């Protein structure tokens, strides 16, 4: 089983990101589960969401304390909460930031390997493509590429399914996903 934890702030699509991963993994023929630790719908409040992917049915409902993949959608959380809590040296970490590793205040797990760390300026890409600082799909392109856990086709299909009532968002988000999926991260 692979466990994924996503950190961000209310309004950044943290919950949707987890749902998109689960829908895409399910389309790939895997078992999946996505849920969130909500705040009361408050824009800007820290939010966590969780995804499990497995070949077997997923039974547990506890939150994710030892993530195999960690996504940080908002680097301003780094000084505020211990986002890397429970991560180990094998945890793949994706952070949305314009800064480089040395400038970030993150307690990386001891022995964390450099090729497990991915920094992308998702905000810049999101503003350019989507027109807003909603970075979830930008990061999901990078996630799909870096982890190989979900296919690009399934992710595109998941976006179409999730945004079925907002067709104007579909093309932009697929473009955002492709931008990072096709880049070298």
């Amino acid at each position: 089983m692979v466990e994924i934890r996503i950190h961000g702030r209310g309004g950044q699509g943290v919950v949707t990101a987890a749902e998109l991963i689960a829908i895409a993994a399910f389309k790939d023929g895997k078992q999946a589960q996505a849920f969130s630790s909500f705040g009361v719908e408050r824009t800007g409040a820290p939010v966590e969401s969780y995804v499990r992917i497995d070949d077997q049915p997923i039974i547990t409902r506890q939150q994710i304390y030892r993530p195999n993949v960690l996504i940080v959608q908002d680097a301003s959380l780094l000084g505020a909460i211990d986002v890397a809590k429970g991560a180990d040296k094998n945890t793949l970490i994706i952070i949305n930031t314009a800064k480089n590793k040395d400038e970030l205040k993150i307690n990386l797990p001891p022995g964390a390997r450099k090729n497990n760390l991915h920094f992308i300026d998702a905000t810049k890409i999101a503003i350019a493509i989507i027109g807003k600082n909603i970075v979830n799909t930008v990061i999901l392109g990078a996630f799909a590429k870096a982890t190989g856990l979900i296919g690009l086709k399934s992710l595109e299909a998941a976006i179409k399914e999730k945004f079925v009532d907002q067709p104007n968002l579909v093309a932009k988000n697929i473009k955002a996903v492709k931008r990072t999926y096709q880049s070298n991260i």
Partner: protein
Amino acid sequence: MNNANYKSQMLEGSRAIALTIKNISPAVISAYPITPQTHIVEDLAKFKADGAANYEYVRAESEFAAASIVAGASAAGVRTYSATSSQGLLLMIEVVYNIAGMRLPVVMTCANRALSAPINIWNDQQDVMAARDAGWILLFAENHQEAVGQHIMAFKIAERLKIPVMANVDGYIMTHTYEPVIIPTAEQIKRYLPDYTPVAGQFLDPENPVTMGVLATPAHYMEIRQELHDDLTASLKTIDLEYKKYHSLIQNSKFKIQNYKSKFKIIDNGLLEYIGPKSPQTIIVALGSVISTIKDTVAESKDVGILKIKVFRPFPAEEILKIIKPAKNVAVIDKSISLGHIGPLASDIKAVAQGQTTANITSFVVGLGGRDITKEIILKIIKLAGRKSDRARFIGKV
């Protein structure tokens, strides 16, 4: 119509329930759209607005009104549905008692959430405990698939027995979680649940005038209440029978949903599910979605059995007793507390066991107000299960 076309989908719990209700197609749905509400009624309102549903959707001005509207519609002889949660259920409660007293076959979902004060919107099961003694059948689901089935069965049971059914699902933990689930189509559901035809003389019909909710003096009130109690108690048989029918007609071998597997013998009926050894050291008893985490924690233990209660009212006392009798310890997990006593489920299990077993039965309160229930918490409860205590033990962290 063959049933080979059951398709598994990745859905949020609320959406799974909303799609099921749409396929059941009640005549009247009423709800009040405010926190705490769920995506269930939001989705149902949208299906209607999109022209994809045939029911009347009445947006009420309060939860009290929503319950009154479905009560009135049900009294007029049509299939009705509502959903609520937390404080919303509390505001409905006067009507909830009336619905049962008037023998109206209303079906309602309760997305279980904490009660104020302090204000908290997250999951526990304190809300439904306020409706425990109202005369409704109270069902609890562990996962989306079970919730879908229970909702379909709920209408059949309610309409056969003229007893309302509340289908409970854990707020957030089920309502907001995405997991694979199969939603039977309207045609598939119809083979199990035919259209609702009220019995003449049992609904408000100018051709057959009746009075409902009449004044009952001390000369009659007690017998009427006892009759409701007797019918509710006797409904266990119908609930179990409907479970079997549902599973042969809908959730049968062609219904391919991946499930938890165990090497142990599983007792599974309409009232409860037991997984574990025949004579376990400890049996854990619980309601709702926490059973999943317990299964994941205990998996294949030769010492610990898991008893899931699917029907909390009426209370399946005999069936529970049969299962807990051989155990040394019975750890009862409640996501609610009868303040000043112990967990409500623990209290009931103790009453059932009275004089029937020497097992050490203890009350554990977990997960209040959305506190995460971890594997470690379950392991701690198993460890503490052998220690005698007459008090509720709150296990919030390890």
